[in-house]
């Protein structure tokens, strides 16, 4: 059988998802696939578009790579716009030629609706849809003060966030009496408006713009029907979307009354060889302007083309949960109680800024819909009640009341049926999770890797963990958090025991709370906890035996038993004199030297007894220990910043040195790396660090919990436009909270992923002080900063401590005969086996 030609018009999120699903079916070998994209860029994540101004690039947002298309044998033609479809001859035409098709899938998406207002053709009237649009907005915003978004819906508020990120005074103008009229009711909309205004975005509701004219104080003036006006430098229209159906219209396909390519349950149009998916398609007289229903259509389409006769799109849940300008907003099902007989239960706490509404069926048994503003905590539970039609408890109001008011805890995992959808991005049900656990996945990480659950928007992370833990427990897998055989506690619990009981030594802790005498797992962990709590010298008599060799000897043991030395070079800034000292010391002790990834210099091959002598010289020249051996702050990498760089907007080196000096010596569950970039070009690669700081025109954007290494992870944007003091106090809180709550050897990235509630929860704790411990965290950090000592300085000055560095206590002059060296590229290195005869 000869292969058929499949053409896909449009390379957006939905078009790409369709191809991802299609290549997983055997049918993919039946087709030669061509993809045409009007934009020159590969499909990217429009949901997170506003992050583009927060430092994300197209690469961060891209859904895939050109290599992926090549590997799948798909002919990807970006920037080649399809201009016509000839249905009789079954060919599409582009400016470059004609291409025949057997099956044609349209995934052309939508375009922003620009209301027909006089003056809307002004060059500083823009839209918000593509990365090119964002570039235009950025160019227009340069050097001006204010921006207006027309449209107070979901995308409009995203756009307002983007303007705010660009440093503009942002306004939102909405025609309806409230924000997000589709998803929210008037009380919810009012609270959202109040919260957004508090964040510095002006909201103008019930304003109909009549015309846009030249401004007096700014570029433009918007005149409203109530005779008021607003001056602004640029206007972004975000007043809804319209299906991109021009091609379909031109070739005579059936189009809905208000636009949209009409499709049936198999996503097929009025022509049996042409199909449509995503925002361009009209199903049952509805357009679905969200990505999840588009993905569902994409999956249906892939099944249909692979010959699955039962595949059908039967509508999609339009529930949404999101954070707009930092404010939680959730809308589930029939939020406006349009079902006959529907009743509502409302909880409105103006003090805390929480609004919650449940819409329940006439008999009070089922949940039909819900609205949440201010706190999405109950969202997952409510969504499961609605989607799975679970019977409501006798007092359904408990689901939205705070727990102190008799509110119910989250829905237990057992109450969910096997069909319950856990991850909507990747369509993973509870049943799928049970299947992979039965097939051998025995922890959360394995389940994630196998099912992809929680790797899309991540909104289901907490629910997924609950389900996985519950299923593992049911199968008798003990989810043990004990650190080792000596302590029946997790690191976090040990931390509390030490802190609350004022315990200062390992011996006391194990006598009172553990058994046996400890091991190489619990001793260093407790050593680190004691250091965080009391900050005594690591070589104090009681602490010496707790430390790994690296901490004990304050150097990094290498494979041949010798050590490497890394002095601190804050921010990577070093004077020529200090460089010369490093060179001279390295030469005198014949050390191999290499520049590290953290902008420092590592000196290798020192013996134990040489360490104090070498440090004596380094300290005399003004160096301090770099803690390269410790579970502690390593480096704060920086780019050269505004002092030298033509593009820098802040002094990144100065900030890096300030941060490195502040947090040096801090003991943590694992090593911690920072970086500070002086502008959005991000030359310091801050987004791959535990703490990443990127300069903006107005201050600093803070990213947290990034990682390089084995499992790279981009940091999450945590707070924007902080001034120096705000930056430091925010980092104080994040770090201290990490140090107190993370598990042993858990980097910040894994900690964050395992933190219930994830990024949102961390923001609540740190930025909103939801636990009321913000002050305490800052004071704890301040105390540690105040008691910092250079461990090496203390050690070389104390003869008792220096005694530890004798290689053989009975033969101080004896050199270890095992160490053998060879030369390579003019430096020494450990000899390979067989390279030299043992002495």
């Amino acid at each position: 059988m000869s292969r058929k030609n499949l053409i896909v018009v449009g390379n957006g999120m939905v078009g790409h998802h369709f191809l991802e699903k299609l290549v997983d079916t055997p049918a993919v070998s039946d087709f030669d696939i061509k993809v045409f994209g009007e934009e020159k860029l590969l499909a990217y994540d429009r949901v997170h578009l506003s992050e583009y101004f927060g430092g994300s690039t197209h690469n961060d947002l891209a859904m895939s790579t050109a290599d992926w298309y090549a590997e799948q044998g798909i002919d990807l033609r970006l920037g080649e716009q399809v201009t016509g479809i000839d249905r009789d001859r079954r060919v599409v035409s582009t400016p470059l030629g004609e291409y025949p098709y057997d099956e044609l899938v349209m995934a052309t998406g939508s375009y922003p609706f620009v209301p027909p207002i006089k003056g809307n053709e002004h060059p500083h009237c823009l839209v918000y849809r593509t990365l090119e649009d964002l570039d235009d907005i950025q160019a227009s915003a340069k050097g001006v003060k204010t921006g207006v978004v027309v449209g107070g819906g979901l995308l409009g508020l995203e756009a307002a966030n983007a303007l705010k990120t660009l440093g503009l005074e942002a306004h939102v103008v909405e025609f309806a009496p409230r924000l997000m009229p589709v998803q929210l009711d008037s009380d919810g909309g009012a609270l959202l408006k109040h919260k957004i205004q508090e964040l510095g975005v002006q909201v103008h509701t019930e304003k109909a713009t009549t015309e846009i004219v030249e401004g007096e104080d700014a570029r433009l003036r918007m005149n409203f029907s109530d005779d008021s006006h607003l001056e602004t430098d640029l206007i972004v229209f975000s007043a809804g979307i319209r299906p991109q159906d021009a091609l379909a219209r031109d070739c005579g396909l059936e189009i809905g009354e208000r636009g949209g390519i009409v499709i049936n349950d198999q996503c097929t149009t009025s022509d049996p060889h042409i199909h449509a998916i995503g925002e361009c398609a009209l199903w049952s007289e509805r357009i679905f302007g969200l990505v999840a229903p588009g993905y569902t259509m994409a999956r249906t389409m892939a099944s249909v083309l692979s010959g699955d006769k039962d595949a059908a799109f039967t509508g999609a849940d339009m529930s949404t949960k999101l954070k707009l300008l930092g404010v939680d907003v959730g809308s589930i099902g029939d939020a406006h109680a349009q079902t006959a007989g529907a009743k509502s239960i409302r909880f409105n706490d103006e003090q805390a800024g929480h609004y919650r509404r449940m819409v329940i069926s006439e008999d009070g048994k089922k949940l039909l819909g819900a609205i949440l503003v201010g706190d999405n905590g109950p969202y997952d539970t409510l969504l499961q009640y609605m989607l799975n039609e679970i019977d409501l408890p006798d007092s359904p109001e408990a689901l939205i009341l705070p727990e102190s008011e008799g509110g119910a805890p989250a829905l237990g995992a057992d109450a969910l049926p096997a069909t319950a959808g856990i991850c909507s991005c990747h369509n993973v049900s509870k049943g799928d999770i049970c299947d992979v656990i039965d097939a051998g996945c025995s922890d959360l990480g394995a389940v994630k890797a196998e099912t992809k659950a929680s790797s899309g928007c991540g909104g289901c992370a907490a629910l997924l963990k609950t389900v996985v833990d519950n299923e593992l427990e049911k199968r008798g897998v003990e989810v043990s958090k004990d650190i080792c055989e000596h302590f029946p506690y997790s690191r976090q619990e040990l931390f509390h025991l030490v802190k609350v009981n004022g315990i200062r030594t390992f011996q006391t802790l194990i006598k009172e709370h553990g058994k046996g005498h400890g091991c190489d797992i619990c001793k260093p962990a407790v050593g680190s906890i004691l250091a965080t709590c009391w900050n005594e010298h690591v070589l104090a008599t009681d602490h010496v035996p707790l430390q790994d060799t690296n901490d004990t000897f304050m150097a990094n043991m290498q494979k041949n038993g010798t050590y490497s030395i890394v002095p601190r070079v804050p921010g990577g800034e070093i004077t020529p004199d200090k460089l010369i000292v490093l060179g001279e010391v390295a030469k005198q002790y014949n050390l191999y030297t290499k520049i590290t990834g953290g902008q420092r210099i590592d000196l290798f091959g020192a013996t134990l007894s040489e360490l104090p002598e070498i440090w004596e010289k380094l300290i005399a020249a003004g160096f301090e220990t770099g803690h390269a051996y410790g579970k502690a702050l390593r480096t704060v990498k920086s780019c050269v910043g505004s002092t030298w760089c033509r593009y820098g907007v802040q002094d990144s080196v100065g900030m890096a040195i300030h941060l490195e000096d502040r947090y040096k010596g801090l003991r943590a569950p694992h090593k911690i790396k920072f970086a500070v970039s002086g502008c959005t070009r991000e030359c310091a690669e801050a987004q791959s660090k535990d703490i990443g700081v990127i300069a903006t025109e107005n201050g600093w954007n803070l990213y947290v919990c990034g990682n390089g290494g084995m499992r790279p992870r981009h940091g999450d944007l945590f707070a924007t436009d902080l001034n120096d003091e705000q930056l430091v106090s925010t980092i104080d809180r994040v770090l201290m909270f990490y140090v107190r709550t993370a598990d042993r050897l858990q980097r910040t990235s894994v900690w964050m992923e395992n933190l219930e509630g994830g990024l949102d929860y961390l923001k609540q704790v740190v930025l909103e002080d939801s636990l009321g411990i913000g002050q305490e965290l800052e004071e704890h950090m301040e105390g540690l900063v105040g008691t910092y000592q250079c461990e090496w300085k203390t050690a070389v000055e104390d003869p008792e401590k220096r005694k530890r560095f004798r290689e053989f206590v009975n033969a101080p002059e004896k050199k270890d005969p095992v160490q053998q060296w060879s030369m390579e590229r003019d430096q020494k290195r450990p000899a390979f086996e067989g390279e030299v005869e043992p002495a």
Partner: protein
Amino acid sequence: MSVRTDWKAVCTVDDLISESGVAVWTEDGPVAIFYLPHRLPALFAISHTDPFTGKNVLARGITGDLKGQPVVASPLYKQHFNLETGQCLEDETVKVKTYQVLLDGEQVRLAIPVKRPESEVA
């Protein structure tokens, strides 16, 4: 020749570190001496050489107990060695040399097998 001559004085109590190890050089090569004050006897001596790498590092490992046995973890690749028997817990085919050790007043003495010509033996 008395029996005591086989017990070599290698260091003093002051050189020892509680709950940890120090290395001494002997005619039989480098030896690690551990002082675990909670045990009786409290002194242990095993070869200082890590059998997996041939490097002299074992005295710098972390001590502790696993299932009741006193152990040290190699600082290089973290295998555990029983301080009484020298047995590696992760690999039953690997064992490090052990030495008898005793405290004689302030002196720490090791029983070192010294090879001497037959003629010197009384």
